[in-house]
């Protein structure tokens, strides 16, 4: 019997501060034991429990794509005790990771279809995973539209990649910030407003991730555009401990975010009274 409570050892290969105040950092981890890497099969949308022994664990979405072999990428916002400790890590340190946990974005269903990805702030992590995965298998999908908003230009994550994606012909990348700042030549305005303006084709599949307020105000826009309720997907966050449906912490209605989610369709969520 396997023991899902035991973290596997991983080495911090690379750390990248994503913004000037350094509250967001991206960690590339490699498997200390080759066999662990071979057994680690994940897909976009899944998450892991990141362990700092002596401090505890926290769940983070996997930001890398399964096509990026040998590494796992996490982007961590500094908010409390475990995330603080993660921010003290140095390249070369060993940490623990449990996973992959949870379900995933229904990318199998996206085959041959148009896809709209809507993200806000640092919640772009698993969206990056999905996007990189789809771009690696570009011919499998129709039009890909990405609407990504942040408070200020500093608060986008994966800035280098955004620049590369911006140049691609086979991807419609729309970046927007909340309020105008000098030297910003992209859009200005909140994600719901921009979504309305872009008015993506309602026959597309949509994945939306971001701060609760962004989701709350963007959903009605999508519904108004006539997106099918079972084609809108989002990823939920709740406090978690076990990650395998035992500890009872992440319950919403009769679902557990850690095993029934974190990815849910709007069709599912509208039936769960405490989901939003």
């Amino acid at each position, binding site marked *: 019997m396997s023991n*899902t*409570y035991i973290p596997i050892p991983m080495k911090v290969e690379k750390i990248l501060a994503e913004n000037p105040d350094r509250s967001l950092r991206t960690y590339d981890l490699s498997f200390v034991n080759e066999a662990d890497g071979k057994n680690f099969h994940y897909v976009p949308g899944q998450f892991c429990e990141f362990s700092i022994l002596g401090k505890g664990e926290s769940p983070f979405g996997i930001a890398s794509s399964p096509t990026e072999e040998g590494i796992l990428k996490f982007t961590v916002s500094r908010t409390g005790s475990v995330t603080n400790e993660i921010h003290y890590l140095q390249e070369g340190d060993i940490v623990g990771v449990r996973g992959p946990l949870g379900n995933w974005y229904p990318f199998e269903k996206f085959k041959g279809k148009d896809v709209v990805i809507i993200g806000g702030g640092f919640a772009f992590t698993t969206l990056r995973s999905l996007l990189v995965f789809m771009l690696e298998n570009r011919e499998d999908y129709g039009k890909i539209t990405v609407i990504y908003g942040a408070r200020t230009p500093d608060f986008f994550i994966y800035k280098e990649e955004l620049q590369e994606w911006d140049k691609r012909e086979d991807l419609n990348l729309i970046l927007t910030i909340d309020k105008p700042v000098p030297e910003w030549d992209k859009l200005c305005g909140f994600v719901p407003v921009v979504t309305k303006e872009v008015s993506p084709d309602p026959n597309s599949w949509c994945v939306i991730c971001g701060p609760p307020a962004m989701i709350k105000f963007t959903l009605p826009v999508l519904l108004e555009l006539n997106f099918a309720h079972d084609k809108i997907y989002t990823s939920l966050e709740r406090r978690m401990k076990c990650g395998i449906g035992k*500890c*009872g912490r992440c319950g919403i209605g009769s679902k557990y975010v850690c095993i029934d989610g974190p990815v849910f369709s709007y069709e599912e969520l509208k039936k769960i009274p*405490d989901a939003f």
Partner: protein
Amino acid sequence: MVKIKKTRLKDFIDFVQQEYDVFAPTEVGKKTAFKKIDSAFEIIHDIVNTDRSPKEVFFPQSEVLFEYGKDGLKTPERKEKPIAVWGLRHCDTSSLTMLNKVFSDAHQMPDKDMFKDPYWKEKYDNSLIFNQACNTPLSTCFCHWFGRGPFDKTSSDIFVVDVDDVFLLEGISEKGKAFLAKYEKAEQATKEDEAKITELKRKAESFLAEKTDISELFEKIGKLWDEPIWEEISGKCVNCGACTFVCSTCHCFDVSDEGKKGKGKRIRLWDSCMFQLFTKEASGHNPRGISTQRVRQRFMHKYNYFMDNYGVHLCTGCGRCVQVCPVNLDVRELIKKVLDYKIS
């Protein structure tokens, strides 16, 4: 069915102990609880429900998941014998089967190795469960509401009835039957002995308070999410969490590290959905920040969500929560209120 004289119980328990560590109702400080016993003399026979529920035998209040140090991670090695539990009442026997659903699988993804809880399974899977009939149910018992009863034999290995100066034992599972067959000193029970069980059962059932029909409970409570009934019910709850700790089916836990960076252990500890911190997130956001939401969560989990997932209510009617609540929040009253509630 065989019988063992009460004066010879020690010999039988000694026999069980050759193969198993025996846990039985005994005194722990001022409370009664299921603890490992050395000899049959420690067993308290005349209590119906122990103060502490037997879930701690298989799911201890605090349990080491692993230790970490210079040589990496080490999971605790279980060196003890398998566990036999003597003196479980049927409500408690069935509580273990409910916890087993949670810890042995994930309902949506059965048989997937990653969802099996090894700490539970290594204790529960090879245990021997003695399920003892309740001759004198308490005023707080309501197992019969759930279609079970004080003389229910299901879900156990060996059924035990306390009759005058003997214990009658009946093998229920294959494992139980095989075990009893090995104990050669037991006498065969007579027709008269068995007849006494029928009489005891009738008497025991007469102790039970009136039964409430809960066949509509699942559907009804599921419709009350937004109704003011929760404010009314939770009004007096002080969120002490006592009900969840004594509850034989509550299984929420916390995971926490004890020790320093280089050396220490990761443990799991019982936790309670009644506590505000249970769901509080780093941002300060709390999906169940107010008491009403937490009380609703507890009872929705018991009488709706668990049924949805596992086809059974997460409550055995053991009545422990009724006994300990400092403000007399009686779950039976709550169920009746829910059933009688007129949706506005």
